[in-house]
């Protein structure tokens, strides 16, 4: 069975104990974008960490059923989107709000960054989160998916349940909404 994108994975280092090299490669190749999507959809680093764990655990247990109809990346995105959507509908999500200071650690830039840069990156991350939180859910997801250059418009369309043409049309409006909302966070 041809399972694309696995070959892009760097050598397994982080997960030496994982059940197989294949799963380790899957994690290595995709954990960053899945964590980022979870973080920006949920708006809380701790919950994004939990969600990333759950998404990959689900993917690992379902791996043998994955037929390669879509790319691994799109398949993982599908699991993550559904998982975040379920979480956002729960009572806890509607009533518990993340603390502002939680965002300090999650966007941890490289240690070599200057304090000024660290501050700027943190501030930018906070503003992006506030901006995304202020957008309709449809626009938020669309922008986050389109920002991943490895996803095609067809894949974004499939993940958002629309046609590629509709994605292009809505993307234009989503960009405008993001820009307007981002200016409000200054």
């Amino acid at each position, binding site marked *: 069975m041809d399972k694309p994108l696995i070959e892009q994975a760097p050598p397994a280092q982080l997960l030496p104990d994982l059940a*197989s090299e294949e799963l380790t490669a899957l994690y290595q190749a995709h954990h960053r974008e899945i964590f980022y999507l979870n973080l920006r959809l949920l708006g809380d680093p701790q919950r994004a960490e939990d969600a990333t764990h759950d998404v990959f*655990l689900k993917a690992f247990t379902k791996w043998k059923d994955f037929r390669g109809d879509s790319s691994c990346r799109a398949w993982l995105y599908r699991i993550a989107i559904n998982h975040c959507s379920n979480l956002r509908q729960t009572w806890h999500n509607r009533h518990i709000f993340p603390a502002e200071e939680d965002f300090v650690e*999650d966007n941890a830039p490289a240690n070599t960054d200057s304090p000024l840069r660290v501050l700027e990156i943190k501030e930018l991350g906070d503003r992006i989160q506030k901006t995304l939180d202020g957008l309709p859910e449809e626009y938020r997801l669309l922008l986050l998916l389109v920002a991943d250059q490895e996803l095609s418009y067809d894949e974004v369309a499939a993940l958002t349940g629309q046609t590629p043409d509709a994605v292009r049309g809505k993307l234009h409006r989503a960009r405008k909404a993001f820009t307007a909302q981002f200016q409000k966070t200054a």
Partner: protein
Amino acid sequence: MKYEKKFRQEEQQQVSENQLQSQQTIHDFATPEDMLRFDAKQTMTPNSVAERLNRSLKNQPRLAQPWWKRLFS
């Protein structure tokens, strides 16, 4: 004294370069997607996710191997 002056100059130059680099990298985004891409690059997955996954997998029933692996092992 001379070294101190030189050191300060270098330090100032470094600060200016850092500021310029930060301004260039953070504020020059053509589209929201560019900004999100930059943000994504700065965001690291905590190592604890991998550790938790390992623990969780150890507690799970053994994953089924493909038939060809079972046959040839």
